[in-house]
């Protein structure tokens, strides 16, 4: 292993040089600090003496606004808005934390529960996957960090800081540790959430979504494994690995490779490259359904299968219900039966027999095929479903569950988030005819067969 030892030597030299330098810097700083403490003591003494004349310490500047002598009172007069903006400092080293256990290995990172040695505080550490591409430090990682920094909200996971390993390409997010994610939690719950609990969760989730959308942030990967819940019933949206800022009109050529398949809106499956907040609202609908039944709502095996599951639950798009959908790239190869009698609402009602009319109304509107028909987060928050009995359960009254994240490693069954930089999805290879599948289903008396062909 001659090669390896050679590198080791260079590393040694390098680290020795670094150490020496650091020591030098430390000494300089120490000296500086001493000087400062002395200066500080002097300053304090002087200030004490000057205490009375203090308010007069006002700059007199030549071109400045004419200095009125009523300055003492003008300071009191109006309270001017001041922001708490914080500052910046170098990343700390990850060695300030001890790993307690691994929580999850995702597509873009590894998450573990860890303890900050100095304070004993338990946090979640997410190691960012550094896919160095043609453009240096991965812009995806930069975006995830920036958007988390900008999304301070009660129901968005709190990013405390970013730390680095000994190598500068080891980057970790330090987040508040949250006991559960909704996916793992539902796996250990014997029964689905109660209607009152679903309402609370949905309201919290939607309030976070409203915040993000108000600030022009698309999440683009909403699903139960990315939604965390602590033992006090407080929900937090996590995983901003797919999120990005958008605008009005939306930037052209957004990637369609977003959102995990089971939560992916039909317009994405049909290949749109301009989409908006409605894709998150679709995912919200999927999550709503999943919370009610403890089962993912639309478990497609692939893009084509996902679309067919969507169409059989929500009906088949028509030029009336979704004008222009035929112009979407993948819709050209879509063979849909004409003049089918549709009653999407009734299929949803059959599937959720315990959901009230208002609840069905909300769920169907979130799962509207036409993105423009879906409600905004604001609309959802104001929906009558949340006003009718049972009332949303107070978060404090939520049951507590043993935390999987606090213990063993989790396993996952849902498909992973789409891989960035992959090819844009088409709709499979061969012509696929789904009419047979539909014929076997009870809800499909209307004979909603359609054919998808490779374009």
């Amino acid at each position: 292993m001659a090669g390896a030892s050679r590198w080791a030597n260079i590393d040694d030299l390098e680290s020795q040089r670094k150490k020496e330098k650091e020591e030098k810097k430390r000494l300089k700083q120490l000296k500086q600090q001493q000087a400062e403490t002395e200066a500080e003591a002097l300053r304090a003494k002087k200030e004490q003496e000057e205490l009375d004349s203090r308010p007069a310490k006002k700059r007199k500047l030549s071109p400045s606004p004419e200095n009125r002598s009523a300055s003492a009172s003008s300071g009191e007069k109006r309270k001017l808005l001041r922001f708490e903006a914080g500052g910046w400092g170098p990343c700390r080293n990850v060695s300030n934390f001890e790993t307690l256990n691994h929580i999850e290995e995702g597509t873009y990172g590894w998450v573990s529960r860890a303890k900050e040695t100095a304070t004993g505080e338990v946090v979640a550490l997410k190691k960012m996957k550094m896919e160095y591409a043609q453009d240096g430090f991965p812009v995806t990682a930069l975006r995830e960090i920036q958007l988390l920094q900008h999304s301070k909200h009660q129901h968005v996971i709190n990013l405390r800081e970013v730390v680095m390993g000994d190598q500068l390409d080891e980057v970790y997010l330090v987040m508040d540790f949250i006991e559960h994610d909704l996916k793992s939690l539902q796996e250990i719950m014997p029964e689905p959430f109660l209607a009152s609990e679903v309402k609370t969760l949905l309201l919290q989730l939607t309030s976070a979504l409203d915040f993000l959308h108000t600030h022009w942030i698309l999440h683009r990967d909403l699903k139960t494994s990315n939604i965390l819940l602590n033992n006090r019933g407080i929900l937090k949206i996590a995983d901003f690995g797919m999120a990005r800022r958008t605008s009005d009109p939306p930037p052209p050529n957004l990637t369609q490779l977003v959102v995990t398949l089971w939560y992916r809106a039909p317009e994405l499956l049909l290949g749109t490259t301009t989409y908006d907040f409605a894709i998150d609202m679709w995912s919200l609908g999927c999550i709503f359904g999943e919370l009610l039944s403890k089962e993912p709502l639309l478990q497609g095996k692939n893009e084509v299968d996902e679309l067919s599951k969507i169409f059989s639950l929500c009906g088949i798009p028509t030029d009336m219900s979704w004008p222009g959908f035929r112009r979407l790239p993948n819709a050209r190869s879509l063979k849909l039966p004409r003049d089918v009698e549709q009653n999407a609402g009734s299929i949803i009602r059959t599937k959720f027999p315990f959901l009230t009319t208002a609840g069905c109304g909300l769920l169907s509107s979130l799962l509207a095929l036409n993105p423009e028909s879906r409600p905004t987060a604001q609309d959802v928050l104001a929906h009558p479903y949340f006003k009718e009995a049972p009332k949303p359960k107070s978060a404090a009254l939520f049951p507590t569950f043993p935390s999987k994240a606090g213990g063993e490693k989790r396993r996952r069954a849902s498909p992973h988030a789409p891989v960035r930089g992959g090819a844009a999805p088409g709709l499979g290879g061969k012509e696929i005819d789904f009419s047979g599948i539909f014929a076997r289903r009870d809800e499909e008396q209307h004979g909603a067969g359609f054919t998808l062909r490779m374009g």
Partner: protein
Amino acid sequence: MQPSHLATPLATIEQLETSGSQLDGIPADLEDSVRFAGARLTQAAGILLRLPQEIVAQAIVVFTRFFLGPEGGSLAEYDTKNISASSLYIIAKMSAWPKSPRNVINVYTYLDSLSSTFIDIEELERKHDAEEYYVSEGTFQSQKAQLFAIEPHILRVLGFQLHVSLPYTLCITYLQALDVFNQPRASELAKRAIARLNDALLSPQLLYLTHQSPCLATAAIYLAAKEVGVKLPDVEWWEVFDTDREELGFLVVGMLSVANFALEEKGKWGKRKVPMTVEELEVELESRRASNSEE
């Protein structure tokens, strides 16, 4: 780009009091010169890359943050021009106007080839082919490696704090609120105010690192109105924009002094180039030591 709702993180007193460079024995006046030249270099590169001023401004703030405070980067350790290039590259990358390493490197190499540090920035606006400036393949590869290698250093020193909220949009909004756009010299006023904001980016008092954007916008308007001769309301209108008299006064003086500082710098360095690398800085320090011992 959408304006962000967040305020700009500001430098702490400690960060303003000393710097990595000073701890490494670099005299404060030399540090000021290099920082000023580095900020101008970033501005010049941004113009040649035809980047929007918002991107350039953010890059200058990031560049300036990097060298600030005892834990900041030191001029004795990092090549100023590399920090400038990587700052600009990283900010552009995250924006809707990404620039390829090739273009960034070509432009920086072109700027490096000029004989003086104090090029006329306005002249650069007419230079359109700097992005195609010839760089040999070998140089390009090593420069690209540099560009990428520096990125994580900037991110580490800044703790990934790249956020800057800028005063440009605010400035226009404030002018509208002050109802100046029906006055005859309104567009001149707006231009002047924006120019003042651009000057302030180069301020040796680091105005963008010590003041929030509403105050910067307000001061620029105040100053520009005096200069252009547009009359603003006879009340303490700046308070509406969250700026108190004291801060306004301080900023006005700060903005006014940038031009003087620039002149002084130009006079001080004359035909010599301001050191933009560790090596060049060493040479400068060496010649200072030599001339000191002669005296």
